[in-house]
């Protein structure tokens, strides 16, 4: 199962970042440029930065913040809201109801990268519950409240992308800064802050697998809400479980699987399913 998942992660990482033409263009011109195909209007199910040179689609968290910025602007101007942007909320609803955090485990390229970094040490320390609630705070403050309620046009910004997102720093910030000298000259304290956050996350990943998913990811926080009710879900058959604990040992998210198999922390990587000797944990259509 692990191999299949890694293959799927790799396929999606390539698929979602396959505008190689743009990469070549950037390398030749030495000028940063975001891929500009029609696909850019489409949200992808993963924290795959819009500004990554080869990214085909848009990160839904970035799109959501820009939509909220637009809503804020329209309210300030007393203009009609653009309801088409609500499709982003629909995207979260649709993908969430379908599989919850399934996309975190199988699609998200930044999740895959985190697993790769963690392979260096293979350590996986359980984090305090309070720290793991951090992702809801980040979702509320940086994705919803700041982009929507800062009543000053020069402050309208996708604040999560701007100040925190390590996926953006790693997938877009670093390559573009390396290529474009103009961009380097315009780097500011925000660049430094984001590099510090990225470094902090990379170091933390050496101690705890998927540290960012556990504590900070707003996209995971949204999908996590759907974990309890999603159509495709983890089902647990108490009657055949022998409580061997193999599932919990394998869980990258440090869950006590037989108690928390539908927890909002679960990324549906299905390691528990393959570890279970009695098939009491299965993935399929939601069963009570």
């Amino acid at each position, binding site marked *: 199962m692990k191999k299949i998942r890694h293959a799927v992660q790799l396929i999606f990482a390539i698929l979602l970042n396959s505008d190689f033409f743009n990469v070549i263009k950037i390398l030749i011109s030495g000028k940063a*440029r975001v891929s500009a195909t029609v696909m850019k209007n489409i949200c992808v199910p993963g924290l795959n930065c819009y500004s990554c040179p080869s990214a085909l689609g848009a990160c839904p968290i970035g799109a959501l913040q820009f939509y909220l910025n637009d809503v804020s602007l*329209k309210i*300030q*101007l*007393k203009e009609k809201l653009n309801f088409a942007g609500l499709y982003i909320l629909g995207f979260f609803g649709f993908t969430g109801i379908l599989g919850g955090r399934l996309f975190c485990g199988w699609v998200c390229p930044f999740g895959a990268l985190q697993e790769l970094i963690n392979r260096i040490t293979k350590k996986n320390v359980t984090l305090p519950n309070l720290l793991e609630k951090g992702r809801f705070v980040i979702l509320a403050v940086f994705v919803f409240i700041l982009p929507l*309620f800062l009543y000053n046009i*020069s402050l309208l*910004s996708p604040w999560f992308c701007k100040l925190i997102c390590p996926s953006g720093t790693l997938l877009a910030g670093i390559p573009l800064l390396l290529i474009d000298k*103009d961009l380097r000259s*315009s780097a500011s304290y925000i660049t430094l802050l984001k590099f510090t956050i990225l470094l902090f996350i990379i170091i933390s990943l050496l101690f705890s697998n998927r540290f960012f998913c556990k504590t900070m990811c707003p996209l995971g926080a949204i999908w996590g809400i759907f974990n309890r009710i999603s159509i495709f879900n983890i089902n647990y058959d108490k009657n055949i479980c022998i409580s061997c604990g193999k599932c919990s040992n394998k869980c990258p998210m440090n869950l006590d699987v037989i108690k928390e198999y539908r927890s909002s922390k679960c990324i549906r990587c299905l390691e528990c399913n393959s570890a279970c000797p009695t098939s009491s944990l299965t993935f399929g259509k939601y069963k009570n």
Partner: protein
Amino acid sequence: MKHGIAVIFFVLFVFSCKSKNESHIVTINSMADRTFEAVLSEYQYDVAVINYFATYCSPCKKELPLMEKLNSEFKDKRVVFLSFTTETEAMEPSIRGMMKLLGVTYPVYYNAPSVFFNDPISVLPVTYILNGNNEIVERLVGLFQADTLKEIINTNRKNTSAEVSYEKKADNMYYSVQAVRDNNLVLLSFHAKKPYKLGGEEYPPMEITINGKESQKFQLEYSKDGYSLRLQNLSDVKELSGHIKAFACTESNCFIIDENFTVSIQ
């Protein structure tokens, strides 16, 4: 929870009640398929300040009001301020709204190409300073300092205004000349016509030559009534003729006056 939502909506309502400036006018145009040369040819300038922005770029939103401030400072001084964005029609309402909130009044263009005179735009904001020949004299990446930009504009203005235009305008476009007899004196005076100034202050003083048996060169001193000259021993002359050498300057440009004049004595 319910109270929380109510409070959020209330806050939103209070914020949305800020009064708007209804008199705000900004021209927002589409570049369509036009080139920069075509767009720039609509303006007359010695210095053009071209700024690239985007609705999603927050440093740009700090920069646009600075552009506007400089725009009003350099009004009628042959300096043109323009902002461009590569965003399309779909963003037009947002651009309009943004400009309204930021108080921008100078022209703004959307649908702009992502390459400005062979320079691909990769960083926002970016500001180009062009001289009258559409040559990029400076390129400021990122949020500019207003003082720096001002200095660049002023240096380039001086450079361009030094190349004084020699074009000849219709006679007496810049000044009027008058000669009045007062006993045995003749009072010759020159008055600048608006919006020109004749010599004086920061410009070289004007020189007058009066035709006669002995040609004489006079340097005229400036007074608030214009330039005047008292001439003696002209009791039998009905007409004065001579030559005028001077600068006629507006606030942004100077023209050379180097011509003969004739005036009848009243």
